[in-house]
């Protein structure tokens, strides 16, 4: 018999973990001499209090949906893709290359091309760590970390030496042609009060589509069945005729592709050019999002929304309460990863004891059913 009902595992434990993370964050704020309640209010208002706030919150959430899905898909095959940061950066390179080198007549076609190239480049960056894991057993966590640093050096090199606009000092590409600019929130949802300054753009819908796609993939297709089987037991997978090398490769390519697609939101949708360090840690936030969302697309969307709000609210916090640095958001992120990921058992074990106690009491009340 299971120790806990399923809903407790899927909903109750993540919620308790996040509440614990927020409580400890509040403690940190209190220790540095500020009011956690006021900080919370500022953040909530900053994130959700206006169309402007929503515009940023959903924009950040779009990034985190992509990177969160990337980590989640890999988790299903029990692969820990910590390289979302590098895969997204290289995905941005793909977007820049295709948008700068072709005269696109309309943004819709450009978007399709950008999606393909961002995914392709992101997947390519995940391919070598995937291959080394599948064929050589090199630990994918270590190789993807290394590839993050290599990606960052590569991006600096190409932005300084290849794509830099002549005469400009800043390491960034030229602006993309106007025809490739994606519709922003003020274009498609101006009636909700979104202004032109909101960075939320059409990519948000692509992110939601990606969620549906991942859900179908993991829970409805044969490939998803094979990915989950492999994730639970690689020896059983071999017994069932599932090729571990193939599954490792395909899963990581999908994961890297999803991380790379983050670039369409930032590079194509917002900056409209490729700039240095545009990923800004979103690849790592994806880890927190996937852990918190229990690797399920619905969970990922909710967790991405929470982190989008944290990022936007955190920016507001810096203005209203200058004593609290923006890095407070990184602290919260760390605590969410800690409680939902590493300290999972700390929350789980007492809960299991509670549910076991409840069941014992129920069984004591009811007569014993004949054993199996």
């Amino acid at each position, binding site marked *: 018999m299971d120790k806990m009902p399923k809903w407790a595992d899927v909903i109750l434990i993540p919620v308790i973990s996040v509440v614990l993370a927020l409580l400890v964050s509040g403690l940190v704020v209190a220790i540095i001499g500020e009011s956690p309640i006021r900080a919370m209010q500022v953040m909530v208002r900053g994130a959700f209090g206006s169309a402007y706030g929503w515009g940023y919150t959903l924009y950040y959430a779009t990034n985190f949906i992509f990177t969160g899905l990337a980590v989640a898909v890999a988790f299903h095959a029990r692969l820990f893709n910590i390289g979302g940061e590098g895969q997204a950066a290289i995905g941005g390179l793909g977007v820049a290359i295709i948008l700068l080198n072709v005269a696109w007549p309309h943004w819709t076609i450009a978007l399709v091309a950008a999606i393909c190239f961002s995914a392709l480049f992101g997947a390519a960056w995940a391919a070598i760590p995937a291959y080394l894991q599948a064929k050589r057993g090199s*630990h994918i966590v*270590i190789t993807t970390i290394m590839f993050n*640093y290599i990606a960052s050096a590569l991006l600096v090199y190409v932005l300084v030496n290849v794509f830099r606009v002549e005469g400009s000092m800043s390491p960034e590409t030229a602006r993309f042609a106007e025809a490739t600019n994606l519709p922003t929130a003020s274009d498609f949802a101006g009636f909700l009060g979104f202004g032109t300054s909101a960075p939320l753009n059409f990519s948000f819908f692509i992110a939601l589509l990606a969620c549906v796609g991942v859900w179908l993939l993991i829970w409805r297709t044969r490939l998803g069945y094979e990915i989950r089987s492999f994730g639970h037991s690689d020896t059983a997978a071999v017994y069932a005729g599932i090729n571990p090398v193939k599954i490792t490769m395909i899963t990581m390519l999908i994961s890297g592709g999803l991380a790379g697609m983050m670039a369409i939101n930032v590079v194509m949708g917002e900056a409209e050019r490729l700039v240095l360090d545009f990923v800004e840690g979103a690849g790592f936030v994806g880890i927190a999002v996937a852990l918190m969302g229990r690797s399920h697309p619905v969970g990922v969307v909710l967790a991405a929304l929470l982190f989008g709000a944290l990022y936007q609210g955190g920016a507001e916090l810096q203005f209203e309460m200058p*004593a609290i640095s923006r890095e*407070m958001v990184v602290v919260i992120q760390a605590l969410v990863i800690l409680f939902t990921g590493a300290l999972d058992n700390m929350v789980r074990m007492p809960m299991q004891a509670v549910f076991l106690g409840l069941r014992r009491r129920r069984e004591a009340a009811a007569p014993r059913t004949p054993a199996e």
Partner: protein
Amino acid sequence: MDFLTILQILDSTVRLATPLLLACLAGLYSERAGVFDIGLEGKILAAAFFSAAVAFTSGSVWLGLLAGIAASMALAALHGVASITFRGNQLISGVAINFLAAGLTVVIAQTWFLQGGRTPQLSGAARFENIVLPGAASRIRDIAQQGPLGQIYSELISGHSIIVYVALAIVPLTWWVLYRTRFGLRLRAVGENPAAVDTAGVSVVGLRFAAVLIAGVLCGIAGAYLATALNAGFVKDMSAGRGFIALAALIFAKWRPWYALSACLLFGFFDAVGNRYQNIQLGEIIVPVQFMQALPYILVVIVLAGLVGKAIPPRAGGEPYVKER
């Protein structure tokens, strides 16, 4: 390139290799005991901040060092609680610790010093002085006039902070502890097969905690060195991936102390060359500085690919120990 320039690059190699070496040995203790530690980076960073902050406030670099070690050990203890006590995922715990350090150091620095997440510049007794060994020259003008042996002595061997010498001494010490003491035998055993240690009546949890805390101490020294010897104060993200390069060096060294020294010196050398020259011209080919920066990471991937020998980690590494029925 004259002899003295080469010596200067080697001198800077030693300086830059020191934090790597300390962190690498930290990882060695932890991983030899079966606990993966990708939180080296965060521990270095936390130690760097707290050592600089306390050294500035108290005016004593030694108090700073203690504070750095304490901060690093606190994070190490957290890693222990998560991955040993609660048998959580060691990698995820390490990731969390890295972010915790990256965030907390800036948040606290901002509150204490209001300088945008850095500490004020350190000077005087708040920094580690360079030690001039007896008979060595310290000024570059004097060194230039010495013979080659004298130059090696004055430029390369003399003139480092105490921590450099301590770090170098820890290498043979670690070897001795690992292969010649009871603690070392048990430490290696718990990383290979914790069940063997458990059934022999020795506490797996105790041994692993000891290893993780030793890693905390060493990362603490590494961070303090970074902020109070190599630099004069803490700035945001100043560990700059050194924890991961140390991890890379550890794999490169196949989890052995003397090899760790060589690997760290090699990576320190890359760093030193990259700092001195922007682009390196090798005949027709110009090697960009970014390549030098990425080289340690590329090398590790090559090692992991099994192209240069095979790196076999401790067999129980990464797995929380659960008693079997």
